[in-house]
């Protein structure tokens, strides 16, 4: 029973880390699931962005699970939270919890790719108005197009290439090229405004906030890991835009 619970608990924690949750939630969920199954509540957890180590004190049960890919997936965070709460309220059994978690891991995103792309495009166009405080509708179509194409490039490269940070660099490069070429073809007015808006989708805003929250919660290791990852992504984006601004 305890052996099984520790497996399921670490699996729930792993899904949470993969979905970009804060570390205290990962530890809390893992401990709640395992503590609920064992009578002597003595779970110890060591969490970082690249792996979870959980140990049940005074028993031979220890688990380590590696985390290989990370992203942001709010629906998974919400679902794992819901499932673990239903389990600790004894509404579902441990086996059902494991089955549901495994099914959740393979679940497709609830919005199809075309809707995500359209969303990224509109985000770029809307935030162009917000950030630059200009009200120039002539730039709207080009900002939409650049944002959507930049998101598609980032998405495809990140799913096909094993090297990290390259997808963000090439996405930013695409956004910059779209803006410059579009303005040269008189499809828009202001290169600067279009880039400021359309670069929004790949920016690591949520990881930055999670990093700060981790640090303030005392999870220094994962906080610094996250901060470092976000800063490298930021540099990759700055490089991509910078190349376009410098040489075009």
């Amino acid at each position, binding site marked *: 029973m305890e052996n099984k619970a520790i497996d399921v608990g670490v699996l729930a924690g792993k899904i949470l880390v993969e979905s970009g949750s804060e570390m205290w939630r990962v530890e809390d969920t893992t401990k709640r699931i395992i503590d609920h199954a064992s009578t002597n509540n003595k779970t110890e957890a060591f969490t970082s962005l690249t792996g979870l180590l959980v140990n049940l004190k005074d028993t031979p049960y220890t688990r380590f699970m590696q985390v290989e890919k990370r992203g942001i997936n709010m*629906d998974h965070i919400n679902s794992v939270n819901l499932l673990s709460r239903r389990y600790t309220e004894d509404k579902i059994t441990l086996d059902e919890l494991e089955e549901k978690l495994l099914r959740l891991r393979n679940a497709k995103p609830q919005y199809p790719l075309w809707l995500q792309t359209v*969303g990224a495009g509109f985000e770029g166009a*809307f935030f162009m108005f917000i950030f630059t405080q200009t009200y120039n509708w002539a730039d709207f179509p080009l900002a939409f197009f650049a944002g959507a194409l930049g998101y598609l490039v980032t998405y495809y490269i990140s799913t096909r290439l094993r090297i990290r940070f390259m997808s963000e660099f090439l996405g930013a490069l695409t956004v910059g090229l779209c803006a410059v070429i579009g303005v040269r073809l008189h499809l828009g007015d202001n290169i600067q405004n279009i880039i400021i808006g359309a670069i929004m989708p790949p920016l690591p805003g949520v990881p930055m906030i999670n990093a700060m929250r981790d640090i303030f919660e005392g999870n220094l290791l994962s906080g610094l890991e996250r901060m470092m990852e976000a800063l490298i992504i930021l540099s990759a984006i700055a490089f991509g835009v910078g190349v376009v601004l410098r040489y075009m």
Partner: protein
Amino acid sequence: MSLYHLLIQISFSYLGTMTFGLFINMPKKALNASSIIGAAGWMLYWFMFKFGLGSILGNFLAAFLVGLLGIVCSLTKKMPSTMFSTGLVPLVPGASGYQALAAFINHQTDLAISKTVHVMMVAGAIALGYVAAQMVADIIYQRKPKQD
């Protein structure tokens, strides 16, 4: 500052936060609430900026408001408060960041460094505001530090 500008700011900060939710797989139940929080935070910042109260204080208070509203929503909807942290997205200092980058490329290093420091201060103010809201919630709900 006209009614037209006000309407654009409210609707675009709302829609921008909502479209951001689309590609981070936001649960449908939280999409509307997180967008309203995003618009509320941005409008607070916008008014403070328009009335000349400065961008650091504006960002701090806007992030504080986003954090508080996020906690209220997570309690009423019984969802993790992470869902509602997307309300901070309109506050991202995108324009200043771009100006810093452009100044670096044009070899205006002094301007670039001062812009970069400004971006870092704004980012710090946002993070501090958001964490301060969590702190207030912890005090209200008496969540004590972990003890062995």
